[in-house]
């Protein structure tokens, strides 16, 4: 409650919330395409590769302005992607090997440069190491404005090229046969992904940024079967995790933002995996149980009818135990018969014997008809 009150009065908290909401929306929305194309880990490579870009940008300009550092990050991320693509196309090195290789090589160079910068004399050069795990509390207005402009631009382009991006993600070869420039669309999407990643680096950090690309989309997919809805939901999930994680971390001294946001995102993913309708595990289990129960009841009903017909009378009573040898598990027949009695299909004659009612006979005949 105190946090919410502060949100309306505290400037720092407002910046943190707006910045992390922006990054969540952009990375969630664009991450959808990365996930649908099976390129989830490209985001990881881009974000790790961005680190040396940030360091070089600082070394060249001496500035820590967000636009300067983001430009450096974007250039390095782009270069890594380009290397991954061209090497996998021209050699026999596999895509995932190349991803891992670029990720660690660029990240290693970044760490070396970062150490170099920190050991140089002179004040005002510390602070770049917050790019490792992110520091939301450090967000100021110009950061947020930069993030919003770049991220907004990326989302507008995504909306404009909606159908091109859809074909690229679903069936790029077919797109090519229609004369659509799939290569250009691919480059566009990668560029948008790079933008989504670099605007989040200051808040989430290079190490965990890929979670903001993958997790919202993975959660969003659970709840919907439409691309538009999935993009919107992923953006909403990304924003929710971003804001809650950033706020928690910025009000607790020494708590890095990246891991906190990722933990919040993890909660959303877990809830989605278990409780989403249709695709959620819980509902799938409930549905399976329901239909298993229905199959068992139908089987008992038909068995009872079948047994009766052997006596020439569908209403002929039978022992519950006789049914257990036919279609259902031992010990379950009485329970099933009780459910059938509630539905009015059978009646109990004495302690052990059961018989079909007239509506039960009718139902059994209808079932039999349907199955033959």
């Amino acid at each position: 409650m105190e946090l919410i009150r502060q949100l309306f009065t505290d400037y720092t908290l407002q910046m943190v919330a707006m910045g992390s909401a922006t990054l969540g929306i952009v990375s969630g929305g664009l991450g959808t395409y990365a996930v649908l194309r099976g390129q989830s880990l490209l985001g990881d490579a881009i974000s790790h590769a961005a680190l040396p870009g940030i360091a070089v940008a600082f070394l060249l300009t001496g500035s820590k302005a967000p636009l300067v550092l983001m430009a450096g990050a974007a250039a390095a991320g782009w270069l890594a992607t380009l290397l991954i693509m061209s090497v996998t196309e021209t050699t026999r090195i596999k895509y995932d090997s190349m991803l891992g290789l670029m990720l660690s090589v660029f990240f290693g160079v970044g760490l070396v440069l970062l150490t170099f910068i920190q050991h140089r004399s002179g004040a005002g050069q510390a602070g770049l190491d917050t790019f490792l795990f992110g520091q939301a509390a450090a967000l100021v207005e110009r950061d947020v404005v930069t993030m919003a402009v770049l991220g907004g631009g990326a989302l507008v382009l995504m909306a404009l090229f909606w159908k091109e991006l859809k074909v690229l993600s679903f069936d790029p070869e077919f797109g090519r046969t229609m004369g659509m420039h799939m290569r250009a669309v691919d480059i566009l999407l990668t560029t948008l992904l790079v933008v989504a990643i670099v605007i989040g680096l200051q808040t989430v950090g290079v190490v965990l940024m890929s979670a903001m690309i993958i997790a919202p989309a993975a959660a969003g997919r659970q709840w919907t079967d439409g691309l538009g809805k999935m993009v919107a939901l992923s953006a909403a999930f990304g924003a929710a995790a971003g804001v809650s994680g950033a706020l928690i971390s910025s009000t607790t001294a020494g708590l890095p933002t990246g891991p906190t946001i990722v933990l919040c995102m993890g909660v959303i993913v877990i809830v989605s995996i278990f409780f989403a309708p249709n695709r959620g595990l819980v509902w799938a289990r409930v549905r399976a149980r329901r239909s298993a129960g229905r199959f068992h009841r139908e089987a008992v009903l038909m068995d009872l009818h079948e047994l009766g017909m052997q006596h020439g009378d569908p209403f002929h009573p039978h022992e519950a135990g006789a049914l257990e040898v036919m279609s259902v598990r031992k010990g379950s027949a009485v329970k099933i018969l009780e459910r059938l009695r509630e539905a009015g299909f059978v009646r109990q004659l004495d302690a052990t014997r059961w018989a079909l009612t007239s509506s039960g006979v009718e139902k059994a005949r209808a079932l039999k008809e349907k199955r033959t």
Partner: protein
Amino acid sequence: MNGRRTAIEVRDLTVAYRDTPVLWDLDVTVPSGVLMAIVGPNGAGKTTFIKALLNLIRPAAGRIRFFDAPYEERRQDVAYVPQRGSVDWDFPTSVLDVVMMGLYGRLGWIRRPGRKQREQARNALEKVGMESFANRQISQLSGGQQQRVFLARALVQDAEIYLMDEPFQGVDATTERAIIELLRELRARDKTLLVVHHDLQTVTEYFDHVMLLNVRRIASGPVEEVYTEENLRLTYGGRIAFLRGETGPTVQPASS
């Protein structure tokens, strides 16, 4: 077939994957208005041939003409039905949406499909008997239904030439009959169809032309002229059994 225009002309087509030739020095002429099967064993290069025609794979050598013009100029006249397994059917989209993708090429950059495009897509779905599935999520479709959605997507392109990669793969007998009816209907409207086909027994019944392929072109032409024991043996090597039936030689691959 005399006096027909030539729909597709292939000269000296060679496609190689690294050092291994997948297609070697292919010459094929496909007259317009025919329903032609492409037949050959696994790894014979059937899919590669289709993809080379569509410029999805760059040939090492060769010349390909559609109605006497290169593919780039005739793109609008050529529709493609890829193998069903080439896409992720769990993609979050609807049947109608997939069919409308067939119209994206003509729309051009940025422009969105509208009511007219939805109408065309619905008509195409009707032709393949899938109109009631328009709003269905594509992951809920059976194999045969997926195949018919792909056919509908090619139908909206309203092309002159249809290149189909195994449209009968994994579909039930009813769907197979529905599909072959559709292909005959297209032929009756003077469309040209090239169909990668696996079931040697139905070639004579379904198709009027056939190309026998195994890296090289073994034979191509009217079914009654080139679909012979001799040519099949050349195509499949020893891996084939012949059954003499009343309607001439029928064949099936020997269980190896």
